[in-house]
Protein backbone atom coordinates (compact mmCIF):
# COMPACT_ATOMS: atom_id res chain seq x y z
CA UNK A 1 0.00 0.00 0.00
CA UNK A 2 1.51 3.30 -0.93
CA UNK A 3 -1.21 5.45 0.47
CA UNK A 4 -4.57 6.90 -0.31
CA UNK A 5 -5.56 7.46 -3.90
CA UNK A 6 -7.84 10.41 -4.11
CA UNK A 7 -9.53 9.04 -7.23
CA UNK A 8 -10.25 5.42 -8.07
CA UNK A 9 -8.41 3.88 -11.03
CA UNK A 10 -11.01 3.87 -13.76
CA UNK A 11 -8.76 2.66 -16.53
CA UNK A 12 -8.26 -0.90 -15.34
CA UNK A 13 -11.55 -2.75 -15.78
CA UNK A 14 -11.23 -6.27 -14.43
CA UNK A 15 -13.59 -8.77 -12.87
CA UNK A 16 -13.51 -7.28 -9.40
CA UNK A 17 -14.49 -3.91 -10.79
CA UNK A 18 -17.26 -5.56 -12.71
CA UNK A 19 -18.64 -7.11 -9.56
CA UNK A 20 -18.21 -3.92 -7.59
CA UNK A 21 -20.19 -2.03 -10.22
CA UNK A 22 -23.06 -4.50 -10.30
CA UNK A 23 -26.47 -3.59 -9.00
CA UNK A 24 -26.46 -6.34 -6.36
CA UNK A 25 -23.10 -5.34 -4.91
CA UNK A 26 -23.93 -1.66 -4.89
CA UNK A 27 -27.27 -2.27 -3.22
CA UNK A 28 -25.41 -3.95 -0.34
CA UNK A 29 -22.19 -2.00 0.06
CA UNK A 30 -22.87 1.41 -1.47
CA UNK A 31 -19.22 2.18 -1.99
CA UNK A 32 -16.20 0.86 -3.85
CA UNK A 33 -13.25 -0.72 -2.16
CA UNK A 34 -10.38 1.21 -3.66
CA UNK A 35 -8.32 2.76 -0.91
CA UNK A 36 -9.54 6.33 -1.01
CA UNK A 37 -10.15 8.83 1.71
CA UNK A 38 -13.88 8.75 0.99
CA UNK A 39 -14.11 4.96 1.02
CA UNK A 40 -12.27 4.67 4.34
CA UNK A 41 -14.98 6.82 5.88
CA UNK A 42 -17.83 5.11 4.03
CA UNK A 43 -16.58 1.68 5.09
CA UNK A 44 -17.21 2.74 8.67
CA UNK A 45 -20.42 4.71 8.26
CA UNK A 46 -22.37 3.16 5.42
CA UNK A 47 -22.94 -0.31 6.84
CA UNK A 48 -24.56 -1.29 10.11
CA UNK A 49 -21.82 -3.39 11.69
CA UNK A 50 -18.99 -0.90 11.50
CA UNK A 51 -20.99 2.25 12.14
CA UNK A 52 -20.93 1.19 15.78
CA UNK A 53 -17.29 2.28 15.69
CA UNK A 54 -15.91 5.79 15.24
CA UNK A 55 -14.48 6.74 11.84
CA UNK A 56 -11.26 7.97 13.39
CA UNK A 57 -9.62 6.78 16.58
CA UNK A 58 -6.75 8.06 18.72
CA UNK A 59 -3.37 6.85 17.50
CA UNK A 60 -2.24 6.13 21.05
CA UNK A 61 -5.45 4.21 21.82
CA UNK A 62 -4.88 1.49 19.24
CA UNK A 63 -1.49 0.50 20.64
CA UNK A 64 -1.61 -2.99 22.16
CA UNK A 65 1.13 -1.82 24.51
CA UNK A 66 -1.44 0.55 25.98
CA UNK A 67 -4.70 -1.47 26.18
CA UNK A 68 -3.20 -4.98 26.03
CA UNK A 69 -6.31 -5.63 23.93
CA UNK A 70 -7.75 -7.14 27.09
CA UNK A 71 -11.20 -5.54 26.92
CA UNK A 72 -11.63 -6.54 23.30
CA UNK A 73 -10.47 -10.09 24.03
CA UNK A 74 -12.90 -10.32 26.96
CA UNK A 75 -15.65 -9.42 24.53
CA UNK A 76 -14.39 -11.95 21.99
CA UNK A 77 -14.46 -14.70 24.63
CA UNK A 78 -17.97 -13.64 25.58
CA UNK A 79 -19.13 -13.90 21.97
CA UNK A 80 -17.52 -17.33 21.56
CA UNK A 81 -19.15 -18.52 24.78
CA UNK A 82 -22.55 -17.20 23.63
CA UNK A 83 -22.38 -18.90 20.23
CA UNK A 84 -21.11 -22.25 21.51
CA UNK A 85 -23.57 -21.99 24.41
CA UNK A 86 -26.53 -21.64 22.09
CA UNK A 87 -25.43 -24.74 20.17
CA UNK A 88 -24.96 -26.63 23.44
CA UNK A 89 -28.55 -25.77 24.36
CA UNK A 90 -29.70 -27.99 21.48
CA UNK A 91 -28.16 -30.99 23.23
CA UNK A 92 -28.63 -30.29 26.92
CA UNK A 93 -31.60 -30.88 29.21
CA UNK A 94 -31.46 -29.25 32.64
CA UNK A 95 -32.91 -32.09 34.70
CA UNK A 96 -30.85 -34.52 36.83
CA UNK A 97 -32.08 -37.52 34.80
CA UNK A 98 -30.53 -36.22 31.59
CA UNK A 99 -27.98 -33.50 32.36
CA UNK A 100 -25.05 -35.81 33.09
CA UNK A 101 -26.01 -38.25 30.34
CA UNK A 102 -26.07 -35.38 27.85
CA UNK A 103 -22.45 -34.63 28.76
CA UNK A 104 -21.62 -38.21 27.79
CA UNK A 105 -23.62 -37.93 24.56
CA UNK A 106 -21.69 -34.79 23.73
CA UNK A 107 -18.45 -36.59 24.29
CA UNK A 108 -19.16 -39.89 22.54
CA UNK A 109 -22.07 -39.44 20.12
CA UNK A 110 -22.41 -35.92 18.88
CA UNK A 111 -20.02 -34.87 16.09
CA UNK A 112 -17.58 -32.32 17.51
CA UNK A 113 -19.59 -32.41 20.74
CA UNK A 114 -16.55 -32.52 22.98
CA UNK A 115 -14.87 -29.78 20.97
CA UNK A 116 -18.00 -27.68 21.39
CA UNK A 117 -18.03 -28.23 25.13
CA UNK A 118 -14.33 -27.49 25.39
CA UNK A 119 -14.67 -24.25 23.43
CA UNK A 120 -17.50 -23.18 25.69
CA UNK A 121 -15.71 -23.99 28.90
CA UNK A 122 -12.28 -22.65 28.00
CA UNK A 123 -13.61 -19.43 26.49
CA UNK A 124 -15.54 -18.88 29.73
CA UNK A 125 -12.42 -19.43 31.81
CA UNK A 126 -10.42 -17.19 29.50
CA UNK A 127 -13.09 -14.53 29.89
CA UNK A 128 -12.73 -14.56 33.68
CA UNK A 129 -8.95 -14.25 33.42
CA UNK A 130 -9.11 -11.55 30.76
CA UNK A 131 -11.69 -9.43 32.58
CA UNK A 132 -9.33 -9.34 35.57
CA UNK A 133 -6.42 -8.43 33.32
CA UNK A 134 -8.55 -5.73 31.68
CA UNK A 135 -9.46 -4.24 35.04
CA UNK A 136 -5.81 -4.25 36.04
CA UNK A 137 -4.88 -2.39 32.86
CA UNK A 138 -7.65 0.18 33.32
CA UNK A 139 -6.45 0.81 36.86
CA UNK A 140 -2.78 1.05 35.88
CA UNK A 141 -3.53 3.69 33.26
CA UNK A 142 -5.84 5.59 35.62
CA UNK A 143 -8.57 5.36 33.01
CA UNK A 144 -11.33 5.37 35.63
CA UNK A 145 -10.64 9.03 36.30
CA UNK A 146 -12.81 11.85 35.08
CA UNK A 147 -14.78 11.62 32.79
CA UNK A 148 -14.83 7.79 32.84
CA UNK A 149 -15.90 7.23 36.46
CA UNK A 150 -19.25 5.71 35.57
CA UNK A 151 -17.86 3.39 32.93
CA UNK A 152 -15.63 1.92 35.62
CA UNK A 153 -18.76 1.31 37.74
CA UNK A 154 -20.41 -0.46 34.80
CA UNK A 155 -17.19 -2.43 34.44
CA UNK A 156 -17.39 -3.62 38.05
CA UNK A 157 -20.97 -4.79 37.37
CA UNK A 158 -19.65 -6.67 34.32
CA UNK A 159 -16.94 -8.30 36.41
CA UNK A 160 -19.58 -9.49 38.90
CA UNK A 161 -21.78 -10.75 36.07
CA UNK A 162 -18.86 -12.58 34.47
CA UNK A 163 -18.20 -14.43 37.73
CA UNK A 164 -21.90 -15.24 38.17
CA UNK A 165 -22.17 -16.51 34.59
CA UNK A 166 -19.20 -18.76 35.12
CA UNK A 167 -20.47 -19.99 38.49
CA UNK A 168 -24.01 -20.81 37.32
CA UNK A 169 -22.55 -22.69 34.34
CA UNK A 170 -20.30 -24.72 36.62
CA UNK A 171 -23.29 -26.66 37.97
CA UNK A 172 -24.77 -27.72 34.65
CA UNK A 173 -22.65 -30.85 33.87
CA UNK A 174 -24.20 -32.29 37.07
CA UNK A 175 -21.13 -34.27 38.06
CA UNK A 176 -19.43 -34.48 41.45
CA UNK A 177 -17.18 -31.53 40.65
CA UNK A 178 -20.16 -29.37 39.76
CA UNK A 179 -22.43 -30.35 42.62
CA UNK A 180 -19.86 -29.93 45.38
CA UNK A 181 -18.29 -26.76 44.05
CA UNK A 182 -21.72 -25.19 43.99
CA UNK A 183 -22.52 -26.61 47.43
CA UNK A 184 -19.37 -25.00 48.84
CA UNK A 185 -19.99 -21.76 46.95
CA UNK A 186 -23.59 -21.36 48.06
CA UNK A 187 -23.02 -22.50 51.65
CA UNK A 188 -21.77 -19.02 52.38
CA UNK A 189 -25.24 -17.65 51.68
CA UNK A 190 -26.41 -19.42 54.86
CA UNK A 191 -24.28 -16.97 56.79
CA UNK A 192 -25.68 -13.78 55.29
CA UNK A 193 -26.53 -11.37 58.11
CA UNK A 194 -30.29 -11.25 58.80
CA UNK A 195 -31.43 -13.34 55.81
CA UNK A 196 -29.24 -16.46 56.15
CA UNK A 197 -30.36 -18.94 58.77
CA UNK A 198 -26.87 -19.28 60.27
CA UNK A 199 -25.94 -15.64 59.84
CA UNK A 200 -25.71 -13.01 62.54
CA UNK A 201 -29.02 -11.41 63.59
CA UNK A 202 -31.12 -14.11 61.86
CA UNK A 203 -32.64 -14.81 65.28
CA UNK A 204 -34.39 -11.44 65.08
CA UNK A 205 -36.32 -12.49 61.98
CA UNK A 206 -38.54 -15.39 63.11
CA UNK A 207 -39.51 -16.49 59.60
CA UNK A 208 -35.90 -17.23 58.57
CA UNK A 209 -35.22 -20.98 58.59
CA UNK A 210 -33.07 -23.45 56.62
CA UNK A 211 -35.90 -23.85 54.13
CA UNK A 212 -36.63 -20.12 53.91
CA UNK A 213 -33.51 -17.98 53.70
CA UNK A 214 -31.02 -16.53 51.23
CA UNK A 215 -29.52 -19.93 50.47
CA UNK A 216 -32.78 -21.79 49.92
CA UNK A 217 -33.88 -18.93 47.67
CA UNK A 218 -30.75 -19.46 45.55
CA UNK A 219 -31.00 -23.24 45.53
CA UNK A 220 -34.75 -23.65 45.31
CA UNK A 221 -34.53 -26.03 48.27
CA UNK A 222 -32.30 -26.87 51.19
CA UNK A 223 -29.81 -28.85 49.08
CA UNK A 224 -28.26 -28.59 45.64
CA UNK A 225 -30.93 -30.58 43.78
CA UNK A 226 -33.19 -30.58 40.72
CA UNK A 227 -34.61 -27.17 41.60
CA UNK A 228 -31.10 -25.73 41.76
CA UNK A 229 -30.19 -27.18 38.39
CA UNK A 230 -33.20 -25.57 36.72
CA UNK A 231 -32.67 -22.26 38.49
CA UNK A 232 -29.00 -22.08 37.54
CA UNK A 233 -29.85 -23.09 33.98
CA UNK A 234 -32.35 -20.29 33.52
CA UNK A 235 -30.02 -17.77 35.13
CA UNK A 236 -27.09 -19.03 33.05
CA UNK A 237 -28.85 -19.17 29.67
CA UNK A 238 -31.35 -16.32 29.89
CA UNK A 239 -31.17 -13.84 32.74
CA UNK A 240 -27.44 -13.26 33.09
CA UNK A 241 -26.63 -13.17 29.33
CA UNK A 242 -29.41 -10.63 28.70
CA UNK A 243 -28.21 -8.35 31.50
CA UNK A 244 -24.54 -8.80 30.53
CA UNK A 245 -25.14 -8.12 26.85
CA UNK A 246 -27.08 -4.97 27.70
CA UNK A 247 -24.34 -3.69 30.01
CA UNK A 248 -21.57 -4.54 27.52
CA UNK A 249 -23.27 -2.30 24.98
CA UNK A 250 -23.72 0.48 27.50
CA UNK A 251 -19.99 0.03 28.31
CA UNK A 252 -19.04 0.39 24.62
CA UNK A 253 -21.41 3.30 24.04
CA UNK A 254 -19.91 5.15 26.94
CA UNK A 255 -16.33 4.60 25.75
CA UNK A 256 -17.26 6.71 22.71
CA UNK A 257 -19.26 9.25 24.66
CA UNK A 258 -16.40 9.67 27.12
CA UNK A 259 -14.13 10.68 24.25
CA UNK A 260 -12.68 7.37 23.14
CA UNK A 261 -9.83 5.49 24.80
CA UNK A 262 -8.11 7.51 27.49
CA UNK A 263 -4.79 9.10 26.68
CA UNK A 264 -2.22 11.46 28.10
CA UNK A 265 -2.83 14.46 25.83
CA UNK A 266 -6.56 14.60 26.42
CA UNK A 267 -6.00 14.27 30.13
CA UNK A 268 -3.66 17.26 30.06
CA UNK A 269 -6.24 19.21 28.15
CA UNK A 270 -8.99 18.34 30.59
CA UNK A 271 -6.85 19.26 33.56
CA UNK A 272 -6.24 22.79 32.27
Amino acid sequence: MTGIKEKPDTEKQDLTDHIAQSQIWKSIFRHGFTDTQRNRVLQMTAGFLLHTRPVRVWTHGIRLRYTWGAGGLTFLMYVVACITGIVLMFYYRPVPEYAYADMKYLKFDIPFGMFLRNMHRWSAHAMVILVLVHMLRVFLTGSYKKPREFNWVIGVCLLTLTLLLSFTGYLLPWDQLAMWAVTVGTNMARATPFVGHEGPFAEFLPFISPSFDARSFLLGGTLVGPGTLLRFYVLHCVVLPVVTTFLVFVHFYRIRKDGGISGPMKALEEES
Partner: protein
Amino acid sequence: MTASGTVSGTALGKAALPDKVHAWPGLLRIEGLVTLVAMIVLCVWSITIDAPLEEPANPSITPNPAKAPWYFLGLQELLVYFDPWIAGVLIPGFCILGLMAIPYLDVNPQGNGYYTLKRRAFALSTFLFGFFGLWIIPIIIGVFFRGPGWNLFWPWEEWDIHKVVSQNNVNLSYLLGIKGYWAEAIFGLVFLGAWFVLPPLMLWQKKAATNPTIKKMGIARYVITAFLFQSMMLVPLKIFARLVLHVKYFLVLPWFNV
Protein backbone atom coordinates in the same frame (compact mmCIF):
# COMPACT_ATOMS: atom_id res chain seq x y z
CA MET B 1 -2.71 14.30 5.64
CA THR B 2 0.19 11.89 5.64
CA ALA B 3 0.65 8.88 3.46
CA SER B 4 -0.32 6.38 6.14
CA GLY B 5 -3.67 8.03 6.56
CA THR B 6 -2.87 9.85 9.77
CA VAL B 7 -4.92 12.94 10.35
CA SER B 8 -2.54 15.18 12.22
CA GLY B 9 -3.82 17.64 14.77
CA THR B 10 -2.01 20.59 13.29
CA ALA B 11 -3.50 20.00 9.90
CA LEU B 12 -6.90 20.39 11.49
CA GLY B 13 -5.81 23.57 13.22
CA LYS B 14 -6.02 22.23 16.74
CA ALA B 15 -2.41 22.19 17.78
CA ALA B 16 -2.75 20.41 21.15
CA LEU B 17 -4.87 17.50 20.00
CA PRO B 18 -3.09 14.17 19.55
CA ASP B 19 -3.23 12.39 16.23
CA LYS B 20 -6.06 10.24 15.05
CA VAL B 21 -6.07 7.49 12.44
CA HIS B 22 -8.87 6.03 10.41
CA ALA B 23 -10.48 3.13 12.28
CA TRP B 24 -10.36 1.34 8.96
CA PRO B 25 -7.71 0.06 8.50
CA GLY B 26 -5.77 1.33 11.54
CA LEU B 27 -7.81 -0.21 14.35
CA LEU B 28 -9.69 -2.96 12.53
CA ARG B 29 -6.54 -4.54 11.15
CA ILE B 30 -5.10 -4.89 14.66
CA GLU B 31 -8.40 -6.21 16.00
CA GLY B 32 -8.62 -8.73 13.17
CA LEU B 33 -5.11 -10.02 13.80
CA VAL B 34 -5.61 -10.26 17.56
CA THR B 35 -8.91 -12.08 17.02
CA LEU B 36 -7.24 -14.53 14.66
CA VAL B 37 -4.41 -15.32 17.09
CA ALA B 38 -6.83 -15.64 20.03
CA MET B 39 -9.11 -18.00 18.12
CA ILE B 40 -6.17 -20.17 17.09
CA VAL B 41 -5.00 -20.39 20.70
CA LEU B 42 -8.53 -21.18 21.89
CA CYS B 43 -9.01 -23.89 19.25
CA VAL B 44 -5.69 -25.55 20.03
CA TRP B 45 -6.51 -25.40 23.73
CA SER B 46 -9.93 -26.98 23.07
CA ILE B 47 -8.52 -29.72 20.88
CA THR B 48 -5.78 -30.70 23.31
CA ILE B 49 -7.41 -30.35 26.73
CA ASP B 50 -10.86 -31.74 27.56
CA ALA B 51 -13.26 -30.05 29.95
CA PRO B 52 -13.45 -32.09 33.13
CA LEU B 53 -16.26 -34.54 33.77
CA GLU B 54 -16.24 -36.61 36.94
CA GLU B 55 -18.63 -39.18 38.39
CA PRO B 56 -22.34 -38.28 38.30
CA ALA B 57 -23.47 -35.94 41.05
CA ASN B 58 -24.06 -37.82 44.27
CA PRO B 59 -25.25 -35.98 47.36
CA SER B 60 -24.19 -38.84 49.66
CA ILE B 61 -20.49 -38.82 48.68
CA THR B 62 -18.69 -35.65 49.75
CA PRO B 63 -15.30 -35.26 48.08
CA ASN B 64 -12.43 -34.20 50.31
CA PRO B 65 -11.45 -31.48 49.71
CA ALA B 66 -14.56 -29.95 48.15
CA LYS B 67 -13.30 -26.94 46.26
CA ALA B 68 -15.29 -24.03 44.84
CA PRO B 69 -14.52 -22.96 41.23
CA TRP B 70 -11.01 -21.52 41.06
CA TYR B 71 -12.11 -17.87 40.87
CA PHE B 72 -13.85 -18.23 44.24
CA LEU B 73 -11.00 -20.09 45.93
CA GLY B 74 -9.64 -16.83 47.28
CA LEU B 75 -12.83 -16.47 49.30
CA GLN B 76 -12.76 -20.11 50.34
CA GLU B 77 -9.17 -19.58 51.47
CA LEU B 78 -10.31 -16.69 53.67
CA LEU B 79 -12.75 -19.09 55.39
CA VAL B 80 -9.68 -20.40 57.22
CA TYR B 81 -9.29 -17.04 58.91
CA PHE B 82 -12.82 -15.62 59.05
CA ASP B 83 -16.33 -16.79 59.83
CA PRO B 84 -18.48 -17.49 56.74
CA TRP B 85 -20.53 -14.31 57.03
CA ILE B 86 -17.32 -12.27 56.73
CA ALA B 87 -15.43 -14.39 54.17
CA GLY B 88 -18.45 -15.23 52.05
CA VAL B 89 -20.68 -12.18 52.30
CA LEU B 90 -18.99 -9.12 53.79
CA ILE B 91 -15.65 -9.35 51.98
CA PRO B 92 -17.03 -9.93 48.45
CA GLY B 93 -19.62 -7.21 49.09
CA PHE B 94 -16.94 -4.78 50.19
CA CYS B 95 -14.80 -5.73 47.17
CA ILE B 96 -17.59 -4.86 44.75
CA LEU B 97 -18.68 -1.66 46.50
CA GLY B 98 -15.10 -0.61 47.19
CA LEU B 99 -14.10 -1.08 43.54
CA MET B 100 -17.12 0.93 42.43
CA ALA B 101 -16.19 3.74 44.81
CA ILE B 102 -12.60 4.10 43.55
CA PRO B 103 -13.23 6.74 40.85
CA TYR B 104 -15.13 8.93 43.30
CA LEU B 105 -12.55 8.68 46.08
CA ASP B 106 -9.40 9.17 44.01
CA VAL B 107 -9.11 12.94 43.50
CA ASN B 108 -5.60 12.86 42.05
CA PRO B 109 -5.93 14.13 38.45
CA GLN B 110 -2.48 12.83 37.50
CA GLY B 111 -1.80 9.57 35.77
CA ASN B 112 -4.96 9.59 33.67
CA GLY B 113 -4.30 7.91 30.36
CA TYR B 114 -0.71 6.79 30.75
CA TYR B 115 1.39 4.44 32.87
CA THR B 116 3.06 6.03 35.85
CA LEU B 117 4.21 4.78 39.23
CA LYS B 118 5.54 7.95 40.80
CA ARG B 119 2.49 10.17 40.51
CA ARG B 120 0.01 7.70 42.00
CA ALA B 121 2.12 5.84 44.54
CA PHE B 122 -0.63 5.34 47.15
CA ALA B 123 -3.43 4.41 44.73
CA LEU B 124 -1.26 1.94 42.83
CA SER B 125 0.35 0.25 45.82
CA THR B 126 -3.03 -0.16 47.55
CA PHE B 127 -4.70 -1.59 44.45
CA LEU B 128 -1.82 -3.88 43.54
CA PHE B 129 -1.60 -5.17 47.11
CA GLY B 130 -5.32 -5.95 47.13
CA PHE B 131 -5.38 -7.39 43.61
CA PHE B 132 -2.35 -9.67 43.90
CA GLY B 133 -1.91 -10.10 47.64
CA LEU B 134 -5.52 -10.65 48.67
CA TRP B 135 -7.06 -11.98 45.47
CA ILE B 136 -4.65 -13.74 43.10
CA ILE B 137 -2.25 -15.27 45.64
CA PRO B 138 -5.04 -16.78 47.81
CA ILE B 139 -6.49 -18.26 44.61
CA ILE B 140 -3.12 -19.83 43.78
CA ILE B 141 -2.84 -21.22 47.32
CA GLY B 142 -6.39 -22.59 47.11
CA VAL B 143 -5.87 -24.22 43.71
CA PHE B 144 -2.42 -25.73 44.17
CA PHE B 145 -1.66 -26.00 47.87
CA ARG B 146 -4.85 -27.19 49.58
CA GLY B 147 -5.67 -30.85 50.07
CA PRO B 148 -7.93 -33.02 52.26
CA GLY B 149 -9.18 -31.35 55.38
CA TRP B 150 -8.16 -28.08 53.73
CA ASN B 151 -4.62 -28.77 54.94
CA LEU B 152 -1.59 -27.36 53.16
CA PHE B 153 0.27 -29.68 50.80
CA TRP B 154 2.97 -29.10 48.23
CA PRO B 155 1.61 -29.61 44.72
CA TRP B 156 3.92 -32.60 44.23
CA GLU B 157 3.28 -34.03 47.69
CA GLU B 158 0.95 -36.99 48.03
CA TRP B 159 -2.32 -36.14 49.77
CA ASP B 160 -2.46 -37.81 53.17
CA ILE B 161 -6.10 -37.88 54.17
CA HIS B 162 -5.19 -38.60 57.78
CA LYS B 163 -2.95 -35.58 58.15
CA VAL B 164 -3.86 -33.76 61.34
CA VAL B 165 -2.66 -30.29 62.11
CA SER B 166 -3.17 -29.41 65.73
CA GLN B 167 -4.62 -26.00 66.23
CA ASN B 168 -4.89 -24.26 69.56
CA ASN B 169 -6.28 -20.92 68.59
CA VAL B 170 -7.37 -18.57 71.33
CA ASN B 171 -9.04 -15.20 71.35
CA LEU B 172 -6.90 -12.09 71.48
CA SER B 173 -8.41 -11.06 74.81
CA TYR B 174 -7.36 -14.37 76.33
CA LEU B 175 -3.81 -13.90 75.05
CA LEU B 176 -3.70 -10.58 76.83
CA GLY B 177 -5.08 -12.09 80.05
CA ILE B 178 -8.49 -10.45 79.93
CA LYS B 179 -11.12 -12.68 81.51
CA GLY B 180 -14.87 -12.46 81.81
CA TYR B 181 -17.52 -12.36 79.14
CA TRP B 182 -18.25 -8.65 79.09
CA ALA B 183 -14.66 -7.61 79.70
CA GLU B 184 -13.67 -9.60 76.63
CA ALA B 185 -16.49 -8.16 74.54
CA ILE B 186 -15.62 -4.61 75.52
CA PHE B 187 -11.95 -5.24 74.86
CA GLY B 188 -12.81 -6.53 71.37
CA LEU B 189 -14.94 -3.50 70.59
CA VAL B 190 -12.23 -1.14 71.78
CA PHE B 191 -9.61 -3.01 69.77
CA LEU B 192 -11.57 -2.91 66.50
CA GLY B 193 -12.75 0.66 67.15
CA ALA B 194 -9.16 1.73 67.63
CA TRP B 195 -8.11 -0.05 64.44
CA PHE B 196 -10.70 1.82 62.41
CA VAL B 197 -10.46 5.22 64.11
CA LEU B 198 -6.97 5.85 65.42
CA PRO B 199 -4.65 5.55 62.39
CA PRO B 200 -6.90 7.67 60.13
CA LEU B 201 -7.46 10.20 62.89
CA MET B 202 -3.76 10.56 63.59
CA LEU B 203 -2.97 10.97 59.92
CA TRP B 204 -5.73 13.56 59.58
CA GLN B 205 -4.46 15.60 62.54
CA LYS B 206 -0.91 15.55 61.27
CA LYS B 207 -1.57 16.11 57.57
CA ALA B 208 -4.99 17.67 56.97
CA ALA B 209 -3.76 21.25 57.18
CA THR B 210 -0.73 20.79 54.97
CA ASN B 211 -1.29 17.90 52.57
CA PRO B 212 -2.96 19.18 49.40
CA THR B 213 -4.43 15.77 48.46
CA ILE B 214 -6.15 15.34 51.83
CA LYS B 215 -7.39 18.93 51.63
CA LYS B 216 -8.82 18.32 48.21
CA MET B 217 -10.51 15.09 49.31
CA GLY B 218 -12.47 16.72 52.08
CA ILE B 219 -13.72 14.98 55.19
CA ALA B 220 -16.38 12.73 53.58
CA ARG B 221 -14.07 11.17 50.99
CA TYR B 222 -11.33 10.87 53.59
CA VAL B 223 -13.52 9.00 56.07
CA ILE B 224 -14.86 6.58 53.45
CA THR B 225 -11.40 5.95 51.99
CA ALA B 226 -9.94 5.38 55.46
CA PHE B 227 -12.78 3.01 56.39
CA LEU B 228 -12.38 0.95 53.22
CA PHE B 229 -8.61 0.92 53.57
CA GLN B 230 -8.69 -0.22 57.20
CA SER B 231 -11.30 -2.87 56.32
CA MET B 232 -9.05 -4.23 53.62
CA MET B 233 -5.99 -4.20 55.88
CA LEU B 234 -7.94 -6.07 58.56
CA VAL B 235 -7.63 -9.14 56.32
CA PRO B 236 -3.82 -9.37 56.37
CA LEU B 237 -3.87 -8.33 60.04
CA LYS B 238 -6.09 -11.26 60.93
CA ILE B 239 -4.06 -13.66 58.79
CA PHE B 240 -0.89 -12.49 60.52
CA ALA B 241 -2.48 -12.77 63.98
CA ARG B 242 -3.71 -16.28 63.21
CA LEU B 243 -0.49 -17.61 61.73
CA VAL B 244 1.92 -16.03 64.18
CA LEU B 245 -0.05 -15.59 67.42
CA HIS B 246 -2.74 -18.27 66.89
CA VAL B 247 -5.50 -15.75 67.45
CA LYS B 248 -9.02 -17.07 66.85
CA TYR B 249 -11.10 -13.92 67.20
CA PHE B 250 -10.45 -10.26 67.85
CA LEU B 251 -13.99 -9.66 69.00
CA VAL B 252 -16.49 -12.05 70.57
CA LEU B 253 -20.10 -10.96 70.94
CA PRO B 254 -23.34 -12.86 71.60
CA TRP B 255 -24.41 -12.28 68.00
CA PHE B 256 -21.24 -12.56 65.96
CA ASN B 257 -17.46 -12.84 66.18
CA VAL B 258 -14.73 -11.16 64.19
